[in-house]
């Protein structure tokens, strides 16, 4: 199980599993918590970015709003 978690973690971190060889002695449950934290943080950033972009579009002065929307959302 440890190896599979390490493989998934390595994949998500964009490295070969061998680059994380120093984690091989760590308990599988602990690696699972680490991997979950990485995934959660990335998803949280997605949500926070969406909220920040919405807020920015809402708060910029009206004459700039269209350009700002296009820059942030592409639409």
């Amino acid at each position, binding site marked *: 199980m440890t190896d599979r978690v390490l493989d998934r973690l390595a994949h998500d971190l964009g490295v070969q599993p061998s680059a994380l060889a120093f984690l091989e002695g*760590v308990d599988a449950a*602990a690696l699972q918590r680490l991997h979950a934290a*990485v995934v959660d943080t990335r998803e949280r*950033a997605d949500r926070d970015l969406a909220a920040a972009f919405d807020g*920015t579009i809402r*708060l910029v002065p009206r004459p700039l709003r269209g350009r700002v929307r296009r820059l942030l959302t592409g639409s």
Partner: protein
Amino acid sequence: MSLLSRMEVRRLARELHVDADELDDLETVAPEDLRTLRGLVGDTLQRAHRPAFRRAVAVTALLPAPLTARLSQTVVGPWLSARIAAEMPPDRSARLASHLDTSFLADVCLSLDPARVADTVASLSDDQVVAVGLELLARGEHDTLGKFVDVVRPAVVDAVADQVDDPVALLHIAAAIEAPERLDEVVDRIPDERLAELLPAAAEHDELATALAVASQLGPDNQRRIVSLASDAGPEFLDALVAAATAEQAWGSVMELLRAVDADAGD
């Protein structure tokens, strides 16, 4: 488990918005490997959202800096601001920073990898960087202060260090400095009287293992200073040092210090 590993786990936990307790099994990993892991995690999070961060940077070119600052503080928040700042031209982020509250900048620092914004920090006035440093000091954010020592000017380090009244706080800041050569430069500028206060304070607050971890990273001249001051601190202090080295499995650090003295004796 070492103090430096524990510190690295705390930093990783902060990066990942989790309690350090959730990751405490990682404390068995060597600190340099944990630093590598933290770097990989930071790179991954930055890379995953880089296109969005760069779109945000494009907007900052369109808006006046005071408005961008207000948006950063009200809707973007410190964690995202830190990551967007890492994609911004340093002169623009420095201009923006001049419109941000010191308290918000301190929040941003908690989420920043100093290496990503070294050029921006270099573009800020010393007064502003010192103000942020003092805010972090007031909050007890010694780890973050230590991390930033690597990228701020020595005058800034001195100005903040002068305001550190608590010797144990100074020790915690020193322990968080990542580059041993910068740590050595900082300790070089601490007078003997202040270092002499630090050792008994470390013993009193059960922080001798931290002191040993810091001392083991110093250059030979400063290691000899520490050993000399420790020798002058009396037998009770030396007993406490031996007990701490045993309890924290820190004899490697002690041997490192003794080697510096041996080398001196052999000169």
